[in-house]
């Protein structure tokens, strides 16, 4: 139906416009539209000419301005740059003015294209006026699918049913869409009527166009930007007034440059801090897929520089548009820094750019407000867990970038690219050598650091099960290590006899510390640690992880890998603890505790650990413990079965998705599903198409990444109040920070609890776990 409505909208607005001019010759509509365009261009040329002449700085005003204007109207940015270069030696300032103006024209041109004028013209071209002078002519017979669509121009035809007679009378502006109305109908004009008729085929093809609503922008004869009308916003009733028509267009394909240009053109710099413009958000979350940070700084710098002096020397009222562009560049950069924070500081080119921009802002009256805005952005985390704005404003004249980036509630420092780790490499006799290696060190680097001759030595990854794998020279040596895995350096003959270290095998006996802790306390500890690891992981790591190292050799995914590892550890921990508990009654108590823990984690909206614990409880080594399961109370068992349904991957994890959809922020998302979605988006869609960036794919990426971003940007506070805490309200503000919390049990003391939940010793060998499970219950 929406297609129909949209088509009607076009027909009606077409009609309304023509009528307003009291022009009964509809066929010349096309001509008029063309004329209108021509007039606009001529006006634009004249305006430009006059302005350039009045400034008296152009030697050959006629030719030069015309030349420029034609080029501008072609949207030919490369040639604009050519002109720019030629004149650069003569009159630098003048040139800048002109280029800035040309940019402005180009922007206007873009805007003009968006008004869907083209579509209206198209419709006018295929529309025919049909006058029915004779009364009683049947337009569409009952039961027959018509071949044409009509809009009533003048007159009021009737719809007559063979059985019931006159059913209704149509009036001017109403439509008769033949193929869509399956109901038999007879239309018989009572008086002289005029119709606008559009053949079905034309109508359908235009409808398709309207539906697709594509706008193509070309640069130098090559397609540079393809926009698509957003179907959501067109009919959105509560759309704000200031959202210009350009906001209704979404980038489908484009070159990185034009995408950025369009972004600067269409973004709304007044969007509040916490709700980013969706386009800006998509762009910033995914730009590194199609352009490097250096390219981004270069392009922003260019947009900024072109307008810089021009705005300083002119009346602000005249050049509001240019100031706007500048403002938008600064806003974009601020949001960029806010999103990436410390990650950008590892890139010298970006740091240089930021410093330069900071200086530019200092000398710029128009941008002072932006600086104030940034100063106001300093947030503090109060003891009660609320974020508050810092009262002390920054009195300096430069931008302090450190105030900009989003502060996370981080106690665990994120791993950074340049960080080095202490890597222990073992020999076949279990002696080890320690080397400090950067995170992305390859096997070759490690071998070099160990000064091992390459010929007869190799690096082996040994799992706790005794399985070994020889690493290739170009593989990463550190990040590939899983739980209880160690690196061994040995010769080919020694490799066959490698035995796992004692530490790799995991605990031998149940240490029973869990017995003294409540499920709630343990869940709270798990969540608080999860939250630290989760917030230390940047959204970009997910995308880098999915896109792969081949494409981004220097990408950082260590924080994500740490979080993935944690998931596996928690799962194995549940299985290990249960399998090591030989006494049936104790084991049943432990099982109940774990189910309780899952309940608490679920209520705390820690989906990641909830799923980890559940995967532990449904592990084959645990689910076969029938005697133990029998001792679980029915009510609890019933709840467990309900949770089990969430695990079911049926219908692409439909059950889990439904649960997650109901959660409010903040929550810790179940990361495997996000990684899976990203993988599918990546594998299912091309990144580039005909050398243009497929921005729709970026939008899909961003939509998924935004979930993680939104979750990370919230301060985490536990929902479930602990028994020991003084306030028992469910409101977030009533609850204390997790670190302030008193342990609910007297023993063990807080530091021990803390230690317990962070350092989990597990058996990661499934075979061994199954053996243990068989040993305790046949």
């Amino acid at each position, binding site marked *: 139906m929406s297609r129909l409505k949209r088509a009607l909208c076009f027909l009606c607005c077409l009609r309304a416009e023509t009528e307003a001019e009291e022009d009964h010759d509809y066929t010349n509509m096309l001509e008029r539209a063309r004329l209108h365009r021509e007039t606009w261009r001529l006006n634009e040329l004249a305006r430009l000419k006059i302005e350039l002449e009045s400034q008296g700085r152009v030697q050959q005003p006629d030719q030069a301005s015309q030349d420029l204007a034609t080029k501008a109207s072609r949207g030919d940015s490369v040639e604009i740059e050519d002109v720019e270069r030629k004149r650069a030696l003569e009159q630098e300032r003048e040139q800048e003015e002109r280029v800035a103006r040309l940019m402005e024209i180009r922007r206007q041109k873009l805007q003009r294209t968006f008004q869907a004028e083209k579509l209206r013209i198209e419709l006018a071209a295929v529309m025919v006026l049909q006058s029915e002078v004779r009364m009683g002519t049947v337009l569409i017979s009952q039961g027959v699918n018509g071949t044409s669509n009509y809009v009533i121009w003048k007159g009021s035809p009737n719809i007559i049913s063979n059985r019931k007679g006159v059913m209704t009378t149509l009036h001017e502006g109403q439509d008769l869409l033949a193929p869509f109305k399956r109901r038999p109908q007879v239309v018989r004009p009572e008086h002289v009527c005029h119709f606008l008729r559009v053949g079905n085929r034309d109508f359908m093809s235009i409808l398709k166009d309207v539906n697709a609503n594509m706008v193509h922008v070309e640069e130098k004869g090559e397609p540079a930007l393809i926009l698509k009308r957003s179907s959501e916003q067109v009919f959105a009733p509560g759309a704000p007034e200031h959202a210009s028509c350009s906001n209704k267009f979404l980038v489908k394909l484009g070159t990185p440059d034009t995408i950025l240009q369009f972004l600067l053109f269409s973004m709304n710099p007044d969007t509040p801090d916490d709700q980013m413009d969706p386009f800006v958000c998509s762009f910033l979350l995914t730009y590194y897929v199609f352009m490097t940070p250096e390219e981004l700084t270069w392009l922003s710098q260019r947009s900024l520089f072109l307008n810089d002096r021009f705005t300083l020397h002119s009346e602000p009222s005249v050049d509001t548009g240019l100031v706007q562009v500048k403002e938008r560049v600064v806003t974009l950069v601020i949001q960029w820094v806010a999103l990436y924070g410390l990650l950008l500081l590892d890139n010298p080119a970006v740091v240089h750019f930021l410093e330069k921009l900071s200086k530019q802002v200092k000398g710029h009256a128009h941008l002072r407000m932006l600086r104030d805005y940034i100063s106001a952005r300093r947030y503090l985390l109060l003891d009660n867990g609320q974020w508050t704005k810092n009262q002390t404003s920054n009195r300096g004249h430069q931008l302090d970038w450190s105030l900009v980036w989003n502060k996370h509630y981080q106690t665990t420092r994120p791993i950074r690219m340049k960080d080095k780790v202490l890597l222990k490499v073992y020999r076949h006799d279990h002696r080890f050598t320690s080397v400090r290696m950067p995170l992305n060190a390859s096997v070759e680097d490690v071998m070099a650091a160990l000064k091992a001759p390459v010929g007869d030595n190799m690096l082996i990854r040994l799992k706790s099960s005794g*399985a070994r794998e020889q690493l290739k020279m170009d593989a990463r040596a550190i990040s590939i290590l*899983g739980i209880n895995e160690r690196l061994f350096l040995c010769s080919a003959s020694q490799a066959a006899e490698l035995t796992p270290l004692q530490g790799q095998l995991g605990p031998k006996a149940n240490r029973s510390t869990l017995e003294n802790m409540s499920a709630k306390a343990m869940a709270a500890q798990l969540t608080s640690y999860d939250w630290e690891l989760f917030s230390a992981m940047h959204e970009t790591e997910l995308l880098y992880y*999915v896109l792969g190292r081949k494409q981004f050799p220097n990408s950082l995914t260590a924080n994500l*890998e740490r979080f*993935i590892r944690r*998931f*596996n550890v928690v*799962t*194995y921990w549940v299985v290990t603890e249960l399998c090591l508990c030989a006494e049936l009654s104790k084991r049943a108590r432990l099982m109940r505790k774990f189910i309780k823990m899952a309940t608490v984690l679920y209520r705390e909206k820690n989906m990641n650990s909830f799923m*980890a614990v559940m*995967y*532990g409880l*449904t*592990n*084959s080594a645990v689910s076969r413990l029938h005697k133990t399961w029998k001792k679980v109370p029915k009510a609890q068992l019933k709840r467990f079965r309900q949770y089990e349904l969430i*695990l*079911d*991957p*049926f*219908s*692409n994890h*439909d059950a889990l998705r439904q649960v997650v959809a109901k959660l409010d922020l903040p929550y810790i998302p179940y990361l*495997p599903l996000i*990684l*899976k*979605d*990203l*993988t*599918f*988006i990546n*594998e*299912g*869609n*091309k990144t580039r*198409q005909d050398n243009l960036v*497929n921005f*729709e*794919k970026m939008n*899909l990426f961003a939509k998924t990444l935004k979930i993680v971003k939104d979750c990370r940007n919230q301060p985490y506070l536990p929902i479930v109040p602990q028994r020991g805490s003084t306030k028992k309200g469910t409101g977030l503000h009533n609850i204390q920070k997790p670190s302030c919390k008193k342990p609910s049990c007297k023993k063990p003391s807080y530091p021990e609890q803390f230690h317990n939940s962070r350092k989990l010793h597990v058996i990661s060998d*499934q*075979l061994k776990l*199954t053996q243990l499970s068989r040993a305790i219950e046949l």
Partner: protein
Amino acid sequence: MAKQYDVLFRLLLLGDSGVGKTCLLCRFTDNEFHPSHISTIGVDFKMKTLMIDGIKVRIQIWDTAGQERYQTITKQYYRRAQGIFLVYDITSERSFQHIMKWASDVDEYAPDKVQKILIGNKSDEEHKRQVATEQGTKLAKAYGMDFYETSAFTNHNIKESFTRLAEQVLQANWKDLDVLRASVTDELNIAALEEEEGIGDGHGDSQKACWC
């Protein structure tokens, strides 16, 4: 309500990352090649109904793409599967060697009756071949599996291999077919409902996914 299918089988794709599991899947479930299509995460994009011996077999295919590092999760999938594709890449010797690891995992975690099939993918990249066809045949024979060399790119042997596994699963479960029918009733209703809803709110075309 007319039954959409008679039985429902769950098949699982296993193999190293990068062997083209997802591509195989999209080739099979959505045979048309849409180079420029944009897709969203569909609800039922991994379902396909086949006619085998007059029985409407609905197969649901699981893919663990993107989750390879979560060892604890992927093993959970095994237990619910009735048929398993072991996929390697003919241009990667390593992925072939890992088949043994995957096969032993399957033996350990999957139900006894599970049916397996060996797939050597990317058969169109003959010039980069590292694993000879004979090697594949030999391995398949050793494990008592059928073997196909496929190409998601040229659509070679895709439908054949999926149908073959479905047939095997059907044969293995022939005796329990009635039981199976009964056990899928709930899911059947859900699936039918989802399908109806999909048509109802017009999400049908927007969520139709294509992954290649």
